């Protein structure tokens, strides 16, 4: 599996650099058996520059999500290295840490804090979150009473206000009902401009082509 890179002129300096990154998972084995490994990524090298919108495409199981986690620093590569030149990197995690028993407000706070915000930062955005998620008074009701659309709206609204140096997106442009999806997508795509650096994983090549200025094929 070689990563081929289709280079389109980009702007800005390199902020994250991947060099021959390889990741393997242990499939089975342990104390008494010889371990067997599954190679998820092999020899992946590319640079992410400031302002890039980088699309990652590949079939199922090609290691797209693993690659995102590696860039985010959640998992460490087994070989090669990921060099971060001093930027914050976050995986956009919808509904991270949601507890169905708790009201929307509490879930927004804990979810935001898990993503790396301080409590004060989330609290000061609560009215924006309520407004964007269109939940109204439902925000004070336990999340277990929400429809799945409402839940994803809340999850998206919390993530919406996140602007790390590099934002990693894993197939997230499909949330909520049709109406909200349009709104979410337009808001998300807005992020794609400004100087936000984004790495996007998607099955939809059309989407990648439309949004990205660089494409990595796994």
């Amino acid at each position, binding site marked *: 599996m070689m990563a081929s890179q289709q280079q389109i002129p980009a702007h800005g300096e390199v902020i994250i650099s991947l060099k021959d990154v390889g990741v393997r998972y242990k499939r089975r084995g342990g104390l008494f058996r010889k371990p067997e490994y599954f190679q998820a990524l092999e020899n992946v090298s590319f640079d992410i520059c400031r302002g890039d919108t980088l699309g990652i495409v590949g079939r199922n199981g090609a290691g797209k999500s693993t690659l995102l986690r590696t860039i985010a620093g*959640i998992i460490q590569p087994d070989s090669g290295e990921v060099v971060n030149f001093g930027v*914050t990197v*976050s995986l956009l995690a919808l509904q991270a840490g949601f507890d169905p028993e*708790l009201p929307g407000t509490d879930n927004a706070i804990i979810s935001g804090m898990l993503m790396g915000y*301080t*409590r004060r930062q989330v609290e000061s955005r609560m009215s924006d979150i309520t407004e964007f998620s269109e939940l109204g008074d439902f925000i004070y009701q336990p999340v277990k009473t929400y429809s799945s659309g409402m839940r994803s709206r809340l999850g998206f609204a919390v993530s919406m206000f996140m602007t790390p140096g590099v934002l990693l997106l894993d197939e997230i442009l499909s949330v909520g009902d049709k109406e909200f999806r349009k709104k979410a997508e337009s808001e998300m*795509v807005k992020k794609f401009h*400004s100087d936000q650096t984004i790495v996007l994983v998607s099955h939809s090549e059309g989407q990648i082509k*439309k949004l990205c200025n660089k494409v990595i094929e796994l």
Partner: protein
Amino acid sequence: MTQGNQGPAQAGLPDSKDLQEWAWQATHGQEWRLAAQRWALVREFYPDESASWIQASIAHRKLEEYDLAEALISEAVERFPQNSNTLRQYAELEIERGKFDRALELVEQAREKFSDDPDVIWSIANVHKKADQCSRAEQENLLGQEVFPENARLAVQYAEIAMQQKDWQTALERWQQVRERFPKHASGFARAAEAAEKLGNEPLSRQLKLAQEYGNAWLISLQEEGEGESVHNISPPQRRNWKTFVDLVWTKARLNLKSEANQNHLRYFWWILDPLLYMAVFYIVFGVLMERGGPGFIAYLLTGLVPFQWFAKTVQQTSGSIVGGKGLMHKVRISPLFFPLVGIVQNTGKQTLVFLMLGLFLVFYGLPPTVHWLAVVPVIAVQLLLMVVISCFLAMLVPFVRDISNLIPTGIQFLLFTSGIFYTVDRIPSEWHTLFFSNPMANILHQYRLVLVENQWPDWSGLGWVFLGCMIGLVIVLALYRRLEPIFPRVVIE
């Protein structure tokens, strides 16, 4: 319907509208050969339809069969004197053939006949534009726009003139006007994107391409946000510092308790009821039914049992917490210490009420509080420290060797019986005392008894040794966490 088209319709042929639709399909698909043939058919049966002549001429023109095209369009001019499009398309043909003077003649002719037709103005400006007389084209176009301010074609042409002059900046401004006035007009975005690209402004070019989908209001709000720092967005700190980490653990534990309480009808009351029932059971069994252990045994039993339960519940609950947190660990970057610590804080929160109930019980049992009770605070603190070390250590170990989680309940049982909860220390032969007290839980429980039941100060040296041991353990555990932190997300799914 005129007399003329009744004939073919009666002969079983498609009516004029259907036939034209069929021809239009080819035209719209830019299949010019097919279009020419289909329009010829239309013309055959419905010669009174102007489209059949004009569109056929256009199709031949596109195929560069100019003579045929001219024959058709000049016939159309004769046949349909009221249709400005005949003259205009004739002019287009002449432009194509490079005969700009002739084209100009034709459109001027059209201007005389159709003075109130914006399309004619467009064609005049177009002839000039094609002849590379851009200033003249601009002049005509502006005059037209004055008379027909609502005409989108003229506005688009105005921008196109700037494009032809390669004046990309002006073109961008003009496209912006097109977008504002005619937001549905696709070229306002697509062609503007080309202009931006020529200017070397790639981000703007991409914005414009996307704006075609999301609309002009989106583009404006995007550009406004770009100017000032957005009101919505906030940046997370580079990396969580210890303060935000503590706040996160605290908030999560607090919310977990709230969530737990929300699941029951009696909510927070359970935190009192649960230990109350628990203590009642032991009181009835050991104090009333069995009447064993002599006077004061119940107080002795409970001061040991209550802190031990705190320990047991916490260790039991937190040992699997890192494995249980794998979903979250793969979504956000978080120290694995978070998971056991939340469990500890959560259980400690509940335990404060239990200690309160224990205190009340002792008072009613006839052991009124003395100043020595204050010493329970350091004892509790040391126990908390011990639990942090053991819970975090076990939680760290379980992901690597899952089998350990099967041993934990047994281990707790073992501790329950070796920590001197159901028997007093003097039952143990004195030569075993050192071994007995090397169990930190036995040591700590002994301190609780000294303070709460026997109204003495704790055995500071014993407590000190446990504290020291815990501190060493804590340093080791923290070092191990720092070392292992990057591999946890991998280990938990393997």
